[in-house]
């Protein structure tokens, strides 16, 4: 897999000087969650964003999704400025967030209300197959395991055929083994669909396994600390020496950044 060098003409996502502050009750100064974040993601690229909890990486993703609208700077997806949520961006959250009163197929159909019934049925069937859940179409979310529910969430996010898929710590709530299965699954889907992926995670292995580039963020204020390209062919061997050395590089960056800006202040 050649590494993509994003050219400014054809970015899938372009973030310019993104900042986000939250008012702090009882204090005059605001909490700076994000400060001057500049990032570009090329079409079809997998960008992994890692950082300690509270570094603003999820906020960054929510800004791209259009769910946080009060922020500084500009976001463009496929050249168009983001002003709110839109079906050009799919979102997968840490929790599956399936509607509990709808079945698997109804949850996927929920994402494509604008389609006529015939194409909706086809789209649902395609995406059930894409995540390998044939036979579970009529199940309710409460009848699924955590990994299966998260697959439905991925199918739902992909059903409107978004140009960009945003994954917010999507496998954080799963056990280590299921998490690795899901990472393989995402890779398989990405190879089939070539959707641009932005993956926010606190799992360094996950970032190195999936990302074309790994963005390491620092905390308070959240900034891009370093961008590490991962030039390993896919599928990547999690036990290889190259994988281990890249993981080490991210680790060092991660903990240096935390060492300089301590999590806790007295």
């Amino acid at each position, binding site marked *: 897999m050649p590494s993509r060098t994003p050219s400014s003409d054809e970015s899938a996502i372009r973030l310019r000087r993104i900042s986000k502050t939250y008012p702090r009750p009882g204090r005059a100064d605001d909490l700076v969650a994000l400060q001057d974040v500049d990032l570009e993601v090329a079409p079809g690229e997998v960008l992994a964003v890692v950082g300690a909890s509270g570094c603003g990486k999820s906020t960054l993703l929510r800004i791209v999704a259009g*769910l946080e609208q009060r922020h500084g700077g500009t976001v463009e997806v496929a050249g168009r400025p983001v002003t*709110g949520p839109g079906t050009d961006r799919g979102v997968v959250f840490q929790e599956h*967030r399936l509607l509990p009163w709808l079945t698997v197929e109804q949850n996927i159909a929920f*994402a494509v209300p604008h389609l006529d019934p015939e194409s909706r049925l086809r789209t649902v069937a395609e995406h059930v197959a894409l995540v*390998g859940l044939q*036979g579970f179409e009529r199940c309710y979310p409460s009848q699924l395991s955590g990994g299966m529910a998260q697959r439905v969430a991925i199918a739902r996010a992909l059903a409107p055929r978004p140009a960009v898929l945003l994954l917010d710590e999507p496998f954080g709530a799963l056990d280590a083994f299921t998490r690795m*299965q899901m990472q393989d699954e995402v890779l398989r889907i990405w190879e089939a669909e070539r959707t641009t992926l932005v993956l926010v995670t606190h799992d360094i292995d996950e970032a190195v396994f999936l990302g074309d580039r790994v963005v390491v963020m620092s905390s308070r204020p959240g900034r891009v600390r370093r961008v590490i390209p991962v030039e390993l062919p896919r599928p990547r061997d999690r036990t290889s020496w190259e994988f281990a050395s890249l993981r080490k590089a991210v680790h060092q960056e991660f903990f240096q950044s935390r060492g300089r800006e301590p999590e806790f202040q007295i």
Partner: protein
Amino acid sequence: MAGSQPTTIEGAVPQAARSARAPGPRFRPVSEWGPAAGLLLPTLALILWEVLARTGFLPPNWLPAPTVIADAIRDLASSGELWGHLTATLARVLAGFVLGVAAATVLGVLTGASASLRALLDPTLQALRNIPSMAWIPLFLLWLGIQEASKVTLIAVGAFFPVYLNLVQGILDIDPKLVEVGHVYGYRGLALVRRVLLPATMPAYLVGLRGGLGLAWMFVVAAEIMGASRGLGYVMIDGQASSRADLILASLVLFALLGKATDSLLVLGGRRFRRGRAT
């Protein structure tokens, strides 16, 4: 099941595993009897009651035998009276319930959806809730007279509060994360209400409806005892005046059957809104 699945459904215990207990025990535990377990005690009580009444151990004017009560119901039915009483009571319950639910739904949606309206309205409604509902009776009689209007109003007041309280709580408990999912897929306004907000509120609303219906039945008894010429409550008063315990008990039985039947209808009608949720 198509293909081999890398993961499995949790909790999908094969039926075989449950029935694989060692063969031979002559009696299954009561917990596995199903509905029969619940019927055991009443059946035994009825038999004991019948025997005690027949042997004269229970004075018949005090607690007549179950068969005597059944006869009383049959007599009411064959004389054609029963139908009139049943429809009168049912009509009052239905009218009061519908009115109470309508008012509770409108006010509940308003106070649930708007924090300002909640701040304005909810304290007053909570204060009114603390008035024992029977205490309204003299006022309603004074305002609305002894005819249907006062009875229906009293029943409506009874049905109002459970529906209102559960609806408001149901709206406040809507998971904002699911609303966000609605936004992500472009649902706004009415579409968001129909596809997300309404289904999310329905289970709490149904709990309220069941509670409201139960209170409607409670209040129809009070309303009919305070003065009526028809209805099951009237049959009770009639039984009391003529010292006929069988009539009083007959109308008790009919109240129980009607209450249970209407509640079951409500549960049945609401079943589709409970799909996919753990009970």
